[in-house]
């Protein structure tokens, strides 16, 4: 084989000119964005200088933690938070499963339905749960009902998207075998897809429940029930020792949720 070595460039470069140009454009864009943000962002330097002082003051006011106020309001608010997270997750599963089934393009062979389902999932995920809570407060009034609905609607996108992806990854073999026997659609889903996506389904649900426990703790800041309401009222009254108690409780619940998740993942999967 006759290769003309001299036709190769003398110095080897990793990227072509166009690739390099794109990279530089990207880096330039980043730098530009950062510089622009630093220049225009509204920071009051005096506030920054006394930040350590303020932080110390905050810690001083938080200590000692006001454990006595746990009985009554705060403990029931904590239970309410857990109810909101759990019921919201259950509601989300009920609402998200049909959307997830429609979004999977190997199960639903209709492009229009796929796109519609995708649109529902994207809009559910684009709106933050706090904003969902604000919307539902406008509909149901302040309280735990709005919080539960917010959690549920925010979770539809998450559960539906991951469920749809799990269905799309399922092996076609069992499904084809079932189709060949003339099984109905519900049987195909129940015996063809469900055994394959079951581990994914449980892990999605557990993951979302964990996220929902965290999120339901802050929903109360906009008035959607749960421990966030206690947090908000304690902050408005500058009762920082009660704020500290609520923060410790939220922390404990989050850790507890993680432990439950790891345990049940081991037994369910």
């Amino acid at each position: 084989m006759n290769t003309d070595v001299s036709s190769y460039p003398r110095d080897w470069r990793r990227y072509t000119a166009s690739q390099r140009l794109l990279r530089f454009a990207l880096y330039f864009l980043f730098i530009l964005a950062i510089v622009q943000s630093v220049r225009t962002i509204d920071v009051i330097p005096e506030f920054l200088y006394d930040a350590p002082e303020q932080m110390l003051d905050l810690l001083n006011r938080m200590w000692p933690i006001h454990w006595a106020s746990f009985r009554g309001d705060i403990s029931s608010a904590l239970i309410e938070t857990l109810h909101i997270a759990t019921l919201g997750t259950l509601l989300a599963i009920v609402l998200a499963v049909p959307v997830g089934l429609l979004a999977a393009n190997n199960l639903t062979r209709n492009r229009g339905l796929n796109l519609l389902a995708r649109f529902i999932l994207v809009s559910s995920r684009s709106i933050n749960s706090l904003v969902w809570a604000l919307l539902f407060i406008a509909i149901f009034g302040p309280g735990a009902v709005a919080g539960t609905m917010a959690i549920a609607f925010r979770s539809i996108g998450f559960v539906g998207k991951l469920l749809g992806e799990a269905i799309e990854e399922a092996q076609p073999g069992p499904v084809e075998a079932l189709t060949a026997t003339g099984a109905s659609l519900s049987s195909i889903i129940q015996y063809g897809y469900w055994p394959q996506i079951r581990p994914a389904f449980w892990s999605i649900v557990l993951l979302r429940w964990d996220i929902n426990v965290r999120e339901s703790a802050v929903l109360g800041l906009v008035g959607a029930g749960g421990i966030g309401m206690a947090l908000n009222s304690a902050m408005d009254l500058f009762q920082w020792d009660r704020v500290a108690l609520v923060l410790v409780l939220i922390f404990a619940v989050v850790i507890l949720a993680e432990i439950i998740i790891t345990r049940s993942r081991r037994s369910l999967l």
Partner: protein
Amino acid sequence: MAELKMDTPKATRPFALSWQARVGMLLVFVYAIYAATQLGFSWSRFQSGFELGARFVSRLFPPSLERMDILWQGIAESLEIAVLASTLGILLSLPISLLGARNLMPAWATWPSRALVALCRALHPVIVAIIFVKAVGFGALAGVLALTVASIGFIGKLFTEAIEEISLKQVEAVRATGASFANVIIFAVMPQVFARFVGFATYQLDSNLRNSTMVGIVGAGGIGGTLFSAFQRFDYDFVCTILLTIIAIILLGELLARMVRAILLDNVTFRELLRLKPDTRLRAPEGDDA
């Protein structure tokens, strides 16, 4: 003829649910009813909710285009918060995750950095924002700091795990040449994890963009404050404008993240970039709030 008697199998459904599953489902159902009554769900409330909802939706439209300057101010601040928080978070989480990787560092270095990352992950960004609002006052700085903490928690955890999964062969090879520790990191570790790092970082940029529209609700700057006060003043048509803008920005952000990944990871040329296909290769990493 001898009596031909065949045992007809009892008509059982072969894939019937086990009794444990049935009891479990029943328990879940009972719990749902109990929790719903505890939280004050009731049919009459839903009925009145439908009415109010219809009125609410009708008041959302048409979106108001009057106060575009306020809208633009808030959006610009949100974008600034997202950019700065992502930059800080990415820069800080790099050394923290290197310190946290158990296969590279001794235990006295991994424990503190792992604890730091766990602490950053434990609290919701909004709660962190509340604390920073108290520390540095109302405004964008509190938002930047809160989202930086969230970014460290997210990228730090996933990037530490990515580093722990690398192949140690390259590390040994580079070490055998007598390379310094910094060289081992740059030439043996980073090439193996850079792609995933870019994935996490762009994902976090996207997620910071979403969250920066929200921290304003507790006074940490950005469009969230404007949104919240518009809600409280029942300016629902302005609310609609803000929500539509946020959704548009988030969609743009996703597109940008996809382009960054295409340029840095796939080395696309300009022409390929213009007809970019949906990115199915890099999914949102597990464990995040997609």
